[in-house]
């Protein structure tokens, strides 16, 4: 869990947190864990929605001081 890659998408409107996450997921290897940092209110819902539909694994999701910390494991 300690060597997961951080995708820092705080305070960005374009390309936006989910698009940033997809970019880095494409570069990652199967089994890698990425942690998305996002200040977008919608990330708490739209990131898990995509993770579920794309068949990856949502490891954890929490909001700390206005920042979403969402961990995803690449499954395929």
């Amino acid at each position, binding site marked *: 869990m300690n060597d997961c890659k951080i995708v*820092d*998408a705080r*305070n*960005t*409107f*374009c*390309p*936006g*947190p*989910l*698009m*940033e996450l*997809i*970019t880095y997921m*494409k*570069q990652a290897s199967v089994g890698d864990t990425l942690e998305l940092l996002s200040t977008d209110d*919608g990330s708490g819902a*739209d990131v898990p*929605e*995509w993770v579920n*539909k*794309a*068949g990856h694994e949502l490891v954890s999701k929490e909001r700390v001081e206005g920042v979403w910390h969402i961990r995803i494991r690449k499954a395929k």
Partner: protein
Amino acid sequence: MRIVVVGGGTGGTIVANNLSRRLVGEIRARKVRLTLLSASDKHMYQPGLLYVAFGQMSPDQLYREQASLLESNIDFHVDPVVEFKLDENRVRTQSGKVHEYDVLVIATGSRIVPELVPGMREGAETFYSEAGAVKMFKRLREFEGGNVAVVVGVPHKCPIAPVEVIFSLHDYFKARGIRDKVHIKYHYPIGRIHTIENVAKWAKPEFDRMGIEYETLFNVKEIDPVNRVVRSEEDTETHYDLLIAIPPHRGMEVVEKNGLGEGGWIPTDRYKLTMNGHDNVYVLGDTTNLPVSKTGSAAHFEAEVVAENIASIVKIGAPVRDYDGKVYCFIEAGHDRATYAMFNYQIPPDLKPASKPMHWFKMAYNQMYWTSVRGLL
């Protein structure tokens, strides 16, 4: 002081011209030497490719001689860098020449990589290159009706382009009198029709009015050109007669080969625009790994910050400004209307209804770009 700018696109050209004016006295007194290294003797206005794809501009209108855009005190060479020795403060070019620097600016841009999606190169039209845009126009011109699908690779340059091409397709087929024979379907990687929430809110009623079908959470996985099917990572598929793709992008190969950044994107401080771990190396435009739009506009505003800070370092020994994430993008809403999106790291865009005057302003900007890239606008 020796300043070397690598890359002659929008960002590199504006940085070089801006610095040449701010440091005109220092360059004349030979206290500063300003060098620009580019891979091409031509400069392309890349946003014009969308117009080429719809027969509204000819390819030769996209180009100017790079040397004609530069101030005369810039030491310009068409000699791309092949090796970065950042720990030794020097770069080596294709011709074998070594340039030592005190400050380096990397603005090498990005490239399309349709080959990363099986079948995309053979099966899809795209307007992200001159040859692709011309070919796409010829396909559109001979198209008499059927299913047109638009898919979007990630990451991609010009995030507004996916919605712009939809509006242009609608107006193009309408003008030809065959809009009722063409079904247009738009596919987008995330759960709404544009990554910027306010653009998505603005575009949705426009799509509905134009009769555009859309599928979200669609990341293109593969294309079967024989059976004309495009499939997504999310296990859905669409049949098409004509497929238009926004291809995925990567940073330039030279960045990857020199180990400067994964995917060709260089890790960059989002405010200082310096390369992480290298305070005398600035990065701007598509080359950065920043969560900022890959557009000429972002490169332009970043270039102004970089140039002002380098000039300030020369003059007072310290930088004076941070980049605030500013981006301004025109949005063509068809062939006679447009709007715009302006935002930064803190303030989201506030979309106005599309209008004809904003379209005319965009038409004027297509010419004003050549003033902008000279660093005058």
